């Protein structure tokens, strides 16, 4: 066994060798074992892509053709406790374009043991949700005569969030400069520190600033929704903040995910981003009841992530980095590319498909790949 393992070490991937080892019956003769390895190798080599196979184009067609059958209308549910999520073609476009800001950022937060069984889940959810001053206020009004802002607190919400009123007062005075804050019976009176010439306009601006003042929770998490999924409580959020959520002790960081690929790239790195592109695209495709081999999506994901950054398949992203001038020019904005190429004196080595189609030369894939070398 050991000999064979050594022999096949460079021929088969480790995982497959391991798999053979694990699934072997107890009694195997040496000749049988040899035969097994031989056949596995044969099968492995047969299933590999041939040299010169146009994997990229086949991936593009394999995704593109079923894509035409995708329904454009996203199903929105009549229920209250359900969020509207971008799915279908718009979502795929969003992912493949490598958008910086996606339409519906979401997280699925998995929890550690006591919480995942539903214990104190509401409190935890409120802890994660970002609370703005606006959320705590019953009323926000401007007193024109006094030139102050009067804030009426919503005691019920405050109790839910579990925050002390003194803390709120402190956060306000720290968060906004040059104001004085006075506590009243049912809220605060906020007065800009007098310079004598405050206009109503400025007061209004201050009010808007106060409204959006972040008090507690995790930033950018606009909504939280505890859901029971497969016998386990998780928290679905709208708005993402992977970095801060990961820091919480109560959550399970190994399974908690965001659907914002750019964010994943920043927090967890490219490999995670690559995998999440695959997962997200596949989720949409499965959702639509289509059947596309994951390998095609992996191909796309690999291409997008190969520089170490997540790049979209656009003229600013991956297409813009093609080596060939003619290939770039044939995609979008030809004049721009030709002009820049002329200024910089770029060279085109005619190594990929489109350039050779343009020049009517055999394209270097498939039968066009092998060439003859002459002995001198």
């Amino acid at each position: 066994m050991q000999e064979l393992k050594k022999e096949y070490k460079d021929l088969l991937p480790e995982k497959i060798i391991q798999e053979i080892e694990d699934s072997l019956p107890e009694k195997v003769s040496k000749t049988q074992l040899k035969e097994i390895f031989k056949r596995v190798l044969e099968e492995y080599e047969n299933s590999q892509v041939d040299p010169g196979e146009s994997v990229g184009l086949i991936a593009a067609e394999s995704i593109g053709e079923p894509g035409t059958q995708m329904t454009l209308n996203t199903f929105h549910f009549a229920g209250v406790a359900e969020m509207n999520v971008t799915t279908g073609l718009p979502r795929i476009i969003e992912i493949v374009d490598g958008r910086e800001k996606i339409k519906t950022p979401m997280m699925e937060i998995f929890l550690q043991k006591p919480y995942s069984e539903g214990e104190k889940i509401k409190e935890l959810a409120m802890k994660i949700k970002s609370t703005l001053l606006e959320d705590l206020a019953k009323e926000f009004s401007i007193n024109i005569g006094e030139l102050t802002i009067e804030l009426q607190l919503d005691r019920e919400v405050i109790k839910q969030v579990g925050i002390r009123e003194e803390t709120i007062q402190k956060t306000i005075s720290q968060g906004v400069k040059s104001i004085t804050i006075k506590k009243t019976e049912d809220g605060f009176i906020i007065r800009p520190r007098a310079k004598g010439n405050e206009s109503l306009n400025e007061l209004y601006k201050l009010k808007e600033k106060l409204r959006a003042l972040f008090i507690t929770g995790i930033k950018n998490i606009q909504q939280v929704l505890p859901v029971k999924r497969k016998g386990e409580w998780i928290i679905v959020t709208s708005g993402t903040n992977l970095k801060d959520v990961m820091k919480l002790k109560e959550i399970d960081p190994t399974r908690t995910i965001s659907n914002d690929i750019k964010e994943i790239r920043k927090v967890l790195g490219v490999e995670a981003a690559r995998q999440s592109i695959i997962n997200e695209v596949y989720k949409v495709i499965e959702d639509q009841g289509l059947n596309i081999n994951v390998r095609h999506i992996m191909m796309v994901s690999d291409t997008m992530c190969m520089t170490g950054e997540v790049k979209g398949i656009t003229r600013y992203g991956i297409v813009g980095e093609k080596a060939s001038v003619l290939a770039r020019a044939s995609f979008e904005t030809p004049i721009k590319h030709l002009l820049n190429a002329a200024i910089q004196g770029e060279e085109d080595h005619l190594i990929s498909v489109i350039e050779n189609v343009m020049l009517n030369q055999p394209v270097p894939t498939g039968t066009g790949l092998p060439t003859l070398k002459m002995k001198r």
Partner: protein
Amino acid sequence: MSEVYIDGKFIGTVENPEEFVQQVREERRSSKIPDGLNISYNKVSDEVQIELSNGRARRPLIVVKDGKSLLTEDTLKKLQKNELVWSDLIKQGLVEYLDTSEEENAYVAFSEEELTKEHTHLEITPLDMFSLSTSLVPFANHTLSTRVHGGSKSQKQAVGFYTANFPVRIDTDVSVLHNPQVPVVQSMVYDISESDKHPAGQNIVVAILSYEGYNMEDGVIINKSAIEYGMGRSSYFRPASAEELRYSGGLVDEISIPDKEVKGYRIEKDYRFLEDDGIIHPESKVKEGDVVIGKTSPPRFLSGMDEYNLASNVRRESSIAMKHGEQGTVDFVMITENEEGNKLVQVRLRDLRIPEIGDKFASRHGQKGVVGIILPETDMPFTARGVTPDIIFSPHGIPSRMTVSHLLELIAGKTGALSGRYVDGTTFNSEPEEALREELLSLGFREDGTETLYNGMTGRVMKAKIYIGDMYYLRLKHMVANKLHSRARGPIQLLTRQPTEGRAKEGGLRLGEMEKDCFVAHGASLLLKERFDSDRTIVPICEECGLVAVYDRFKNRSYCPMCGEDTEVSNVELSYAFKLMLDELKSMGVYPRLELKEKY
């Protein structure tokens, strides 16, 4: 206080909008103000809108007062006796036209029975929610709106008797059906619109069955005898015209038989049909390439030295000839003048079009199909009475499209044809299906419209009973003869040296982007190259400067206009389009240098 607008312009306010609107309507009904005016009150925005502009969609409705229709039996009788006409009804305020916004204020009853005190209007007939051609679809209330719409569209494309004065008209691209018939299954609108004066189809026997597979995927099988009896036979008319244009410098075109010295002279044979005036004589049978109107034009560029050049002073041939793949008979010749006073010759060509494989047929229910095969009568299935269907329509076209009206027309047509009467198939108001079935039964047929059919090729009884009957079928104007196109070699564009585009120019069939992807995906690299070889050229390239060099055919050697004769010049195979791009780059001041690799 409600605001009042006329055609969107604010004009004032009223205290009591509902009363005001009602008052205006009363005055319109009593013809004090024009009946083209529509007024509506919008409660939400609290605005009164008065519309007078052109192009609003309006429809007539019977006015209802206190739950009673104003159009009484009395008036109806007067209408029947022609004592009253439509415009009288409007003048008397019995019928009024509502536009879309006034319709919002109205409460319209569908039928007289359901009238209540609240109703303001009564529908004249449910039929008037359809357009003219849609209301010609029989039993349309039994079929999906999309199909009814399709049937309505089909009728507009039908070949028929479109006008009685067609022999003296010159229309572009028209057809006339030789033996048009009035449909057996009609709707009320046929009488009103005098459709019987310009019918566009024929009543034929249709069997719904699969037969030898030639009617799959919306195909139809046609009986050859039916065609020989005249089914679907039509004439296609197309004009050819030429004008004697005047050019600057007193030069004119001349319609005549061109002189042999003329530049671009065809062969003598091509002019054989022309009479002395240079125009073809009627009833001559022309084929592709034959000249219909002989014409010569003055030389194109007359300037500078050319005037002294004898060779260029020759007139140019510009005759009108039959295009590639065209044929016909000259039907009618007309010589007139146009608006500018130039001599204008128009020739109308006629071509007999007998239905052939690829021609399009349709019923009135959006069930269109293309002829798949023309079978001799002996091979067609036949009934016990010896009837053979004229068209065999595939049953697979029915379930997914749910054109129930198609099936109903068949049974109605059968009943009508057998009892020698027209059947009323007016939408929402047709003869009941049960009555038709009963009548069919009394005529000695199976009441469900099916019959035992015998296979025409084997003579065996078909196991299933076949649904067979009479239907009104339309021949649509899309004929293969006008569309068939293929190319092996042919004309190319001057600029790119690529094949021309389109059937008229005998163009190539494009191998597009996605087709290209297919070749790449299969790795068929050399086949791909061969497909794109249409503009292949061999270009000499100077290896020194990388630009296109010159080949001197007389001296049989190449040289570079930049680097002289002592440089290495190699021949490179390129697409001409790329060579053109290189030239264009050069013209913009960009130096596209080709660096050649070693050949081996």
